[in-house]
């Protein structure tokens, strides 16, 4: 009786990890610059394809991760300089423009790679699973994902709170105009944070490639999940990503077990909509003073 | 005389900070009250509380006998309180005329407005207001084409058109030229003949031009209250706000 619940709970933790991985890049961009990148899913997808190429060239996931960070980071930089930079003051239209970027990326990738599914393998050392007493083996790769999620959170935390760049980022977030008056190039901060966030999306893609088959439209569901994590958890604070991810991940897993995937998602969605009535800017956005 | 606005022991605490501390205030009909105080004294917060933007932690606000503490902003407006923001808040793509038109005193509900026509009386009133704020020439221009001073005046015109009993002005002369400040102060004084007015101001020239009773706030509390001459002579006020020279911030 207890066993399926524990299995679901553990499985849920890996879903939480996935949600954190895909959401953290989006969170810092939205938290600082106030824009949502609708091409986030496609950025993840490009990261996954980078991992596929690395795989073809003989590398493994550990090489794919920095490669994807670089590739998608540069992609993000290009998008920011070419498009986003002109429309920071119009967040709704950024949604539309980045959606256009997303569509374009899907087409370009499809034209280059075709639309059949790619299979990217996990590193050999991670085959198999952790055998816990009386439970099904918990795949090592899933544990790896949890580790990656934790590392990404730590990395982001470090960058935001322990570096000079991060100090500028926090200053811009608190009071953009004042920070500008103090001589800090806020446009440059936006650009760098967008690049960094995009790089994280690339890492997400590289790390998730072995789990789900790689194809041009693979990224969109992840993007929507990331959005929901941000809406629920809030962007005031990095804890928002973890909290939002934890609640959504566990709830979806357990509800999907009890009913089915789609009803699970529906119930979680309803929960989120009701929750933001209490926390209009997300759970951790609550303490933010409106700008 | 019965006070139009009665504030009793209004207190607001946010995240451990006390922004308003047991504020008591009485404003009477057709009174022009000036609210002074250094930055951070709580003046704008007080206006936010009166107009319903935020709920106070404790205390009561009564307007013409009704308890309006914590009501939403649109309901407080309909009770008869209009507020001008420090930064002019206008309907940017609407014309000057339409900005005033949509602010006219009258029906606010959706279904009542479906078949509403602007009557000749309404139209006259709008033109009257536009003349008053010197924007007749720009009646058909979109609000975002106006200069800063004109924007301030447009918002004042919108307030006037809305026919309230109490007008709250939050530093309405911010960013204006001397000439503009003078004219604005005149306008406010004229408005005070028919409305109760609470004016938050920093510019001592303007204050000297029109102030009668002045309330000074400091760190969320009422520091002093009385005619301008008394306030200026008050030592505590001088220390806290007016500065050593006594000419104050501008």
């Amino acid at each position, binding site marked *: 009786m207890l066993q399926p619940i524990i299995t679901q709970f553990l499985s849920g933790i890996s879903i939480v990890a996935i949600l954190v991985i895909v959401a953290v890049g989006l969170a810092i961009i939205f938290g600082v610059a106030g824009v949502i990148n609708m091409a986030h899913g496609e950025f993840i997808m490009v990261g996954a394809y980078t991992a596929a190429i690395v795989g073809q060239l003989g590398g493994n996931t550990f090489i794919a991760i920095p490669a994807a960070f670089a590739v998608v980071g540069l992609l993000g930089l290009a998008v920011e300089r070419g498009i986003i930079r002109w*429309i920071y003051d119009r967040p709704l239209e950024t949604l539309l423009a980045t*959606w256009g970027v997303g*569509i374009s990326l899907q087409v370009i990738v499809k034209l280059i790679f075709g639309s059949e599914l790619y299979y990217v393998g996990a590193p050999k050392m991670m085959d198999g699973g952790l055998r816990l007493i009386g439970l099904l083996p918990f795949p090592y790769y899933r544990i790896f994902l949890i580790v990656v999620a934790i590392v990404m959170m730590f990395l982001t935390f470090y960058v935001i709170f322990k570096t000079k760049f991060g100090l500028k980022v926090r200053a811009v977030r608190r009071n953009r105009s004042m920070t500008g008056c103090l001589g800090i190039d806020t446009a440059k901060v936006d650009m760098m944070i967008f690049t960094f966030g995009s790089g994280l999306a690339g890492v997400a893609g590289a790390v998730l490639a072995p789990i789900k088959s790689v194809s041009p439209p693979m990224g969109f*569901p992840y993007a929507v999940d990331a*959005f929901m994590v941000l809406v629920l958890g809030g962007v005031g604070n990095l804890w928002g990503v973890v909290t939002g991810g934890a609640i959504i991940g566990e709830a979806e897993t357990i509800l999907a077990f009890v009913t089915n995937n789609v009803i699970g998602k*529906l119930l979680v969605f309803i929960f989120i909509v*009701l929750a933001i009535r209490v926390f209009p800017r997300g759970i951790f956005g609550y303490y933010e003073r409106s700008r | 005389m019965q006070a139009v606005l009665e504030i009793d022991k209004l207190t607001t605490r946010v995240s451990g900070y006390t922004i308003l501390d047991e504020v008591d205030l009485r404003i009477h009909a057709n009174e022009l009250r000036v609210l002074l105080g250094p930055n951070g004294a709580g003046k704008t917060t007080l206006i936010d509380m009166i107009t319903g933007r935020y709920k106070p932690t404790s205390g009561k606000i009564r307007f013409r006998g009704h308890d309006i503490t914590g009501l939403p902003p649109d309901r407080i407006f309909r009770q008869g309180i209009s507020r001008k923001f420090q930064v002019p808040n206008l309907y940017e793509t609407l014309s000057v005329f339409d900005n005033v038109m949509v602010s006219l005193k009258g029906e606010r509900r959706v279904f009542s407005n479906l078949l509403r026509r602007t009557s000749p009386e309404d139209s006259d009133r709008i033109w009257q207001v536009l003349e008053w704020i010197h924007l007749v020439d720009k009646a*058909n221009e979109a609000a975002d084409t106006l200069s800063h001073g004109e924007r301030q005046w447009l918002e004042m015109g919108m307030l006037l058109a809305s026919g309230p009993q109490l007008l709250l002005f939050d530093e309405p002369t911010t960013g204006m030229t001397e000439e503009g400040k003078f004219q604005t102060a005149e306008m406010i004084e004229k408005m005070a003949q028919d409305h109760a007015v609470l004016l938050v101001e920093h510019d001592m020239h303007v204050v000297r031009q029109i102030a009668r009773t002045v309330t000074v706030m400091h760190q969320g509390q009422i520091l002093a209250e009385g005619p301008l001459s008394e306030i200026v002579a008050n030592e505590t006020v001088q220390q806290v706000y007016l500065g050593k020279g006594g000419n104050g911030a501008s």
Partner: protein
Amino acid sequence: MARVHRHTVYRQPLLPLWAVVLGVGIVIGIATYPFYGQEYVTSLLGKFLCYAIFALSIDLIWGFTGILSLGQAVYFGIGAYFVALSLKINYATLHPTRYGGTIPDFMEWNGLTELPGFMEPLLSVPFAVVCALLIPTLMAFIFGVITFKRHIYGVYCAVITLAEALILQDFIIEYQAYTGGFNGITDYSNYANVYFLWVILAVTVFFYIAGRMLTHSRVGTVLRSVRDNDVRAEFMGYNVANYRIFVFCLSAFMAAAGGALYAAWVGLVSFLDTGPVFSIEGVIWTAVGGRGTIIGPFVGTFLVKGAEFFLSGVLADFWQLIMGGLFIFVVLVMRDGIIGSIGKWIRRHRAGSIEQIIADSDAIAADRQRDFRPAGASRQSEEV
């Protein structure tokens, strides 16, 4: 800027003559086309008209009220599915399958042997139409009350509506026994004839005129003021949430009507008509045509969909790339859309040349200079 003498307010007439003439011309053109034109174009015309209704519904909430909903297809789709299901169920009872079953084929494929109880009322097409219109409106009302009453709008609303559309899409695919799933609902007797085209045309004209009347009314001005500065509107006494809910429900009703007509005309309804992709496409048609204008959505829909029809065969995947570029283009460059840009050009023209504008401004400034009184001058302080 021409000098305005005292009592002149520039007002667009409710139905300018040129619009009436042009409109009548277009209506007659579309209404008579089936008699001499090609069949596939006729079927496109009907389809595009339904899409134009959908785009108008988006313009009302986005162009005029500033709510970007990325899930309007939910209402279109539910409207479409109700009608399609009803028509399909009726068709199935009259055309038994080879196994003798009188229920829709997709139900049979999924193991159902008889019509589910809760679907029996759909045997009545009028009932299905009522459901098609009312249920989306009710859903919109509930959604509006939940979100707008808490002042949740902007990016948050956009993202939530996006998720909503995706979930509905997933639902439809999952419960294929009841919805036809991936394949959708097809092979039923659809009304692909001239008279129904006239019905669609009439409904389209009705909605467009109603939309024009709404946006021309005081409510329209209030909606635009809510769009421009909802804080100011609220502090000026308007219950902003109520206005948003009102226009959101109206928009859902319109989208649902478009969907219902679509299902009846086209004869094929699938999850693609309900999801985020279709929702955002509708936004783009509106943006291309010109948001915040009433004819913009119509123009944008016909242009983009028309171009898609003629070009996508040739260009295949490149068309999607063009669409992606179009999104970016419409946001960065042509913000007012086609109609909006034309309108702007006309207004500029009316304002006169640059020299005229400068001369007028100088004249006004001179008038004001005449009345100048510096601060403090000729005004003695009284008691101070």
